[in-house]
């Protein structure tokens, strides 16, 4: 019998670790893609834009199904992963990171793109006219100017990564103490009638999300006052 306050906190730590890692991995990729979409004109831009946004619209089960097929031990990608990391990806906590990535990346791309497009183009033109290389313009002008919005978006993306359920459940599984993230743990607790654990976890995650929203708001672009 479970005592009322005996809650396994492992899912919380796992979720925090997964979300942090997913955000860190998504950030450079998203910034690169966003910069590409905001500043370059190239063939297939509309297609790339669509592909990036696909995961936001596709049902989680469909996404997870694709990933299962793509990364199974018999698939080429799965085998490459195994040969590098020495073990399969699916149904490990690393798979949960991948699941979180799938949703955080498009969110981050979207927000970063808006941030880059909001940068005063005259600043970038000025830097280019002085002879700054594309890299220099990016690092010294565009990125610092977009940085506030991007960090706010990263915090939100972290929050979104904490809460991923569908894809995580399907490709990382529900192995307590191994791949059971917070949302999945809540699901299990409710399923098994462990109301106390469910309540505890729900309260914790709600509080964290509130804190994240607050932080994102504070970080977000300052509105002009006066």
């Amino acid at each position: 019998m479970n005592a009322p306050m005996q809650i396994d906190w492992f899912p919380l730590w796992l979720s925090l670790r997964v979300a942090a890692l997913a955000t860190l991995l998504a950030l450079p990729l998203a910034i690169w893609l966003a910069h590409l979409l905001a500043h370059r004109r190239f063939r297939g831009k509309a297609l790339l834009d669509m592909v990036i946004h696909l995961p936001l619209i596709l049902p989680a089960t469909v996404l997870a199904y694709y990933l299962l097929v793509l990364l199974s031990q018999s698939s080429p990608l799965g085998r490459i992963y195994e040969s590098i990391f020495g073990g399969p990806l699916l149904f490990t906590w690393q798979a949960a990171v991948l699941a979180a990535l799938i949703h955080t990346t498009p969110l981050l791309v979207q927000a970063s793109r808006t941030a880059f497009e909001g940068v005063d183009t005259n600043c970038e033109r000025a830097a280019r006219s002085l002879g700054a290389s594309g890299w220099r313009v990016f690092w010294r002008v565009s990125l610092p100017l977009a940085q506030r919005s991007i960090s706010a978006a990263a915090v939100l993306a972290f929050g979104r990564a904490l809460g991923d359920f569908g894809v995580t459940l399907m490709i990382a599984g529900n192995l307590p103490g191994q791949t059971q993230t917070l949302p999945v743990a809540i699901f299990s607790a409710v399923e098994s009638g462990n109301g106390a654990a469910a309540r505890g976890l729900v309260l914790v995650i709600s509080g964290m999300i509130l804190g994240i929203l607050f932080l994102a708001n504070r970080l977000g672009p300052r509105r002009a006052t006066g």
Partner: protein
Amino acid sequence: MIQARIRKKYPAVAERPGFTLEVEFQASQGVTVLYGPGGAGKTLVLDAIAGLVPPDDGRILIDDQILYDRATGINRSPAERRCGYIFANPALIPHMTLRQNLLFAAACRRLPRLERHRQVDEILVRFRLNEAGGRHPREASESERQRCSVARAVIGQPRLLLVDEPSGDAGAALRSELLNLLQDVRAEMGIPILLATRQLDDCFELGEEMLAIDGGRLLQSGPPRSVFEQPVNVGVARLLGCFNLLPVKIETLDPGKNTSRLRLGDEAIAGLYFPGRLRGDLLTLCVRHDQLRAAPAAGKPGPNQIRASLQRVAEGRHTVRLHFAGEIVVEMPRADYGERKHVREWFVEFPQDKLRVL
């Protein structure tokens, strides 16, 4: 010396009409003014020379160095072009102080590290920014921001300075300060300047050469005085905005006496002989507002005077513009007009030697 032939086409997208820039010009040392209304393509010309926008076709040279040549596929990077560019707004980088902005510019110009600090210090003094150097753009005054943007553009001695003049909302004081700065830059640093502006006054104040452009095309080039005296076509005259453009028909032409008679509405006026025109030609009479003379109507109209009723008066600082029926506008000194405020009927005189037809 700049030689440029630039063609750039933007196809029509959605509700925006297409735009084609097609200009060819030369500009010598000193200040060349690119004069035209908003949307004429001035900024695009500057961008193409600076290397920010690649043209579709053409050739751009500065002092015999090729910056861009479609035929041979040369397209130098902005760094190799070494043009200074002053934008319509100061466009300083907001998270850097004024000093850091200049240091950044010096670094972009690939000045050696020690040299950067020396030159930045020097230029801060030259542009009276040594006190403001530690401020961020948002903490600096408008004038300091403007001086900093000029300083940033001339650091590292560019071989050409491109200036996109702030539009009307910048305020007269700020604009005249910019013109003074540019004059100093030309005199002390000897950098040729290409200035894009909508202000006719600036052409006279600074320009040794003027390029009138509109709708992506070069309409006329030459010294501002001569463009102003002799616009080559109705487009230029309209652009300059200080001409009467009236439809006339040539009734007689007499090369022997060097005279002509023009029909303007119901009136006939005498002009000089217009070479290359024929009797019966329908043309546009072009005469500057301030070249017409107006006097209160009394008795019979004299030679080349026509009766006109005053519709509206626009008072300026030094002159008054009288708008008459039939789209005739006369500009006269304030003092002359002052005593005749209540006159409605006037005689407008067309001085024979000032009349041109286009």
